[in-house]
């Protein structure tokens, strides 16, 4: 029994690897191999890899290296994200814990949450101009909204029986919040941190596409203007990888902080 199942797993792994290789080969064939597509419509994989390596150090054509663009984007994204989380988590908890506030603030919040982060770019650019601040504010809003949603539902999902245990031991409202509701909401809060990071990163790229002088979004927008599709693809790959790395960092922190596994 054991070997057969093992073998079946490897077979599918092989199929996956094969499928990716075939994909890359077709991509190469269609571009360099048969020259069906010119480089400014679909660059070949070889060209994309070359650009990837060169761009890390080369400032041409948009005046900054890939590394500088990446750092600029990270600085904006993480700045807005951290403040957004710091404001969003307590706000979400407070909204969920106090019924009166919940009923008052909830409808307003439901209206605001449907506005995509990118829409705020125009408002912020008009208020404070293109620079760092306008994009940081846009990121702050989108991260805060995501944090409020998740902390709010984390607190609301606290099991009543856990609250009852606290109450019968005579716990004060503060005890119930800090020793029962918040620890029980922790896993959801970390899901929120992950989601907020994703939405911050996406909103940043959008903001940079619209109005910026540096950053990954700026880089791919500039490259598109001069039909440097290889830089566009390199930019997209770096955006994707950075997003994935940031997300796994948050999950690792979460696994260490949230003890005892998920709610039983």
């Amino acid at each position: 029994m054991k070997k057969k199942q093992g073998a079946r797993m490897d077979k599918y792994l092989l199929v996956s690897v094969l499928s990716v290789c075939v994909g890359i080969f077709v991509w190469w064939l269609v571009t360099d191999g048969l020259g069906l597509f010119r480089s400014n419509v679909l660059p070949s994989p070889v060209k994309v890899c070359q650009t990837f390596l060169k761009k890390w150090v080369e400032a041409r054509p948009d005046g900054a290296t890939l590394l500088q663009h990446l750092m600029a984007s990270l600085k904006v994204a993480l700045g807005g994200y951290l403040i957004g989380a710091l404001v969003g988590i307590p706000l979400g908890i407070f909204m969920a814990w106090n019924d009166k506030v919940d009923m008052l603030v909830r409808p307003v919040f439901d209206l605001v949450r449907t506005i995509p982060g990118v829409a705020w770019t125009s408002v912020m650019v008009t208020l404070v101009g293109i620079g760092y601040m306008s994009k940081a504010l846009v990121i702050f809003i989108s991260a805060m909204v995501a944090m409020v949603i998740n902390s709010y539902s984390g607190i609301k999902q606290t099991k009543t029986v856990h609250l009852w245990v606290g109450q019968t031991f005579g716990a004060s409202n503060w005890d119930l919040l800090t020793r029962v509701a918040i620890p029980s909401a922790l896993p959801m809060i970390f899901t929120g941190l992950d989601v907020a990071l994703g939405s911050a990163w996406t909103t940043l790229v959008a903001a940079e596409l619209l109005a910026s002088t540096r950053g990954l979004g700026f880089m791919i927008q500039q490259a598109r203007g001069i039909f440097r599709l290889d830089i566009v693809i390199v930019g997209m790959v770096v955006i994707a990888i950075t997003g994935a790395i940031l997300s796994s960092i948050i999950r690792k922190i979460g696994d260490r902080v949230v003890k005892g596994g998920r709610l039983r």
Partner: protein
Amino acid sequence: MEKKEPKVVVNHLTKKFGDLLVLDDLNFEVQEGEFLCIVGPTGCGKTTFLNSLTRLYEPTAGEILVNGIPVDPKKQDISYIFQEYSSFPWLTVEQNVRFGLEIKRVPKEEADASVEEMLDIVGLTKFRSYYPSQLSISMLQRVAIARAFATKPELLLMDEPYGQLDIDLRFKLEDELLKLWKKTGTTVLFITHNIEEAVYLSQNIMVLTNKPTSVKTVLHNPLPLPRDVMSQEFVDLRNQVTDLIKWW
């Protein structure tokens, strides 16, 4: 035994959800250190009854006195073991057992001693740093019981804690509970659907009616401890209670 002041006195306890009457004018007394089992037909508002006793549900009318003063979990040591598994998944076994003591701000040495004692009695000392997600169902119930007894409660409420366990495990945990009860002298109110369990544990059995719930009668259980589930007197008492409840 001369008439001591009863531990718990309940007068005209009534509970309504909107216009649905659930508890209908309950009146009874529970003596100090008594083990009272509460039985009743399925779905007769037994949980609402216990929740109203501890003010988790605000009673619509009536008063509940513990040691002569209105019941208040903040001032009095009351513990409640719920039917649902209620150990905190983010706390280890030891931290779970210590939870009540920390809420009541019990000084450290006294709390430590009580935690060690409880872990030892329920046999979870080896598992002190495990998390609930790593434990079996019966061990989880033991954590809840240890946590409840750790604060040396004057009044312990239990809502069918052994409902889901195998027969063997249930007998073992029931014996363990009787041992703890004798050792701490706590007054216990134990809800159950299982009449055999009620006769096995109780000094008195309170039989509730169908909805809207009221007290049908209170039977005294004269059988000496430890009881033989298959002895004729045991079976006779069990038949008597079953006939009071049998609604089908």
